[in-house]
């Protein structure tokens, strides 16, 4: 029982990260119609940049904020330089472009940071907390906290602010939004900047648990996709549930069957979902898109 609870908490920690990445993917997809295959690379960039800044003497919060800003700039540049020029192109074109960008970022990360793993200290000191008999890492609490803050913040932005409503208007009816004077291309830029920020934040928060390497983004990005597809590719609520579900499934799969299987779980889930319910398993239940 304790063991299962332990698995559940680890799964939810991992799942929170997947959910954050999926959230960024879905937001970008809803606004721009582009699946950003480089989303995972934003996670790696944020994590590695924070590690470097921290070891250069910056405080942890300063390293975090600078890394988030730097990755946001990368996201914005990506949109301006390679996404905006092909905004009328086909799906295949845009997906190949984002894959090309992800390859480049990974290669550059290899060039700058090499193959060694980097680490950050846990955000708060102290041993694991005992919850219902299971040990929960304090860093895990930070990760949950990040997910909750992000989801609340995004929800508040979309539902409560004027600008958030302009974004939703653009998703609902692009032509009418244009007539109101809302510029979809600026929203597209915003989407990429926000994805950069979300990815980087997720990367920094997870680093004390998993360490940061140049190639961490590939697998995380892929898991984010699986989470988004489980939830239905344009469904924010679904992305969060999908992420948490996938994290838990992975940890249970690794713990109960074989640790070599951990990565295969996500892929098998993805293939099963695509074959059986490609519109997502949660899409129908919660329905609402942002």
């Amino acid at each position, binding site marked *: 029982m304790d063991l299962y609870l332990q698995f559940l908490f680890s799964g939810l920690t991992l799942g929170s990260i997947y959910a954050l990445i999926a959230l960024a993917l879905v937001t970008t997809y809803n606004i721009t119609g582009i699946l950003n295959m480089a989303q995972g690379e934003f996670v790696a960039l944020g994590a590695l940049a924070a590690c470097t800044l921290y070891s250069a003497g910056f405080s942890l919060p300063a390293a975090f904020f600078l890394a988030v800003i730097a990755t946001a700039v990368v996201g914005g540049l990506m949109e301006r330089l390679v996404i905006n020029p092909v905004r009328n192109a086909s799906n295949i074109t845009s997906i*190949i472009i984002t894959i090309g960008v992800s390859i480049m970022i990974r290669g550059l990360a290899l060039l700058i940071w090499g193959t060694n793993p980097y680490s950050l200290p846990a955000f708060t000191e102290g041993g694991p907390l005992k919850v219902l008999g299971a040990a929960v890492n304090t860093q895990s609490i930070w990760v949950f906290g990040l997910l909750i803050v992000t989801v609340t913040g995004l929800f508040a932005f979309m539902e409560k602010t004027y600008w958030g409503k302009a974004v939703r208007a653009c998703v609902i009816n692009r032509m009418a939004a244009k007539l109101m004077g809302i510029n979809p291309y600026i929203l597209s830029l915003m989407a990429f900047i926000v994805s950069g920020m979300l990815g980087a934040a997720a990367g920094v928060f997870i680093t004390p648990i998993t360490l940061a390497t140049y190639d961490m983004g590939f697998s995380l990005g892929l898991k984010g996709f699986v989470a988004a597809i489980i939830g239905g590719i344009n469904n924010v609520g679904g992305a969060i549930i999908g992420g948490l579900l996938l994290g838990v499934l992975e940890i249970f799969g690794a713990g109960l069957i074989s640790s070599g299987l951990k990565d295969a779980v996500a892929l098998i889930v993805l293939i099963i979902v695509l074959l059986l319910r490609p519109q997502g398993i949660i899409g129908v239940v919660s329905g609402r898109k942002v």
Partner: protein
Amino acid sequence: MPRGNLMKYLFIAAAGIGFVVLPFVLKSNYLLSIFIVIGIYALVVQGLGIIMGYAGQVSFGQAAFFGIGAYAVAILTTHYHWGTIPALLAATVLPSLVAAVIGRPTLKLKEHYLALATLAFGLLVHIIFSEGGELTGGPSGLTGIPYLNIGGFVFNRDYKFYYLVWAVVVLVFLGVRNLDRSRIGRSLRAIRDSEVAAEANGINSAALKLKAFVFSAFLAGLGGGIYAYYVTFISPAPFSFNISIQFVLMAVIGGLGTICGPVLGVGLVVALGEALRWLVPLVIPHAGGEYQIIFFGLILVLAMIFKPEGLSTGWRKITDSEKAEETGLLETSANT
């Protein structure tokens, strides 16, 4: 027009003679092996070109089909001592069956679904290769694949393989050209241009796209089978996701929807890869060959931005672009 035709045939004849005499001219086995690999990849990319150029869908699992073909040969010959013909048959049938299973649900969907399904499938297959225990030999792979042997003729030297591979490439090329100029090829291009109109003109688009996808896996498996026989040992590395990306790059660079494109694309990318392998360490000391992937990413992005017509709009007629390419080549060779 007749003059153009004459030039075309002269060019084809010259290219043909060039290919036939190449092994005698090349002093280095290394270069010959590169030409063999180009030929094998050309088969795989020819297949990818069919699903991308005709069905208008991108597949990130081509290396997995390539790998299934290779592993089929490796496993069947080393564990079960199958002969060449049945082993190669299995190397083509197995990927085709797998493609039929994945393709049926995902090809019906629009957008990115085939891309994601093939991406996941490719990664999963790679994990199976690495984690397959004794059957696949795990991360270190399988060794001791016998020589390719057709009716007692043993392909034990590189030049023999060279002729075999390029003979297959030419046969496949002719087959694809037949296809292109037939009811099937035109129907596929019709589906790509307007699926709804194709259906309204009596074409069962779902069935036809599935056949194209299966054929593309068939060619990848064929390439994989020959590859296994050529290198005689197999490990998971040459069938990774990165290789799938390289196949996509080759197909895109060569020009989609053209018959010559795949061979051209493979040649360019392989040559570029080899060049980078020499050049990168000169610029960045201590850098290994893996940095070439940065340039592949860059080329992929630039190609998509500046030459996207290869993928989305303005598909030219295959025969037209073929002519354009050939005359282009002729003009440059005439000038030099």
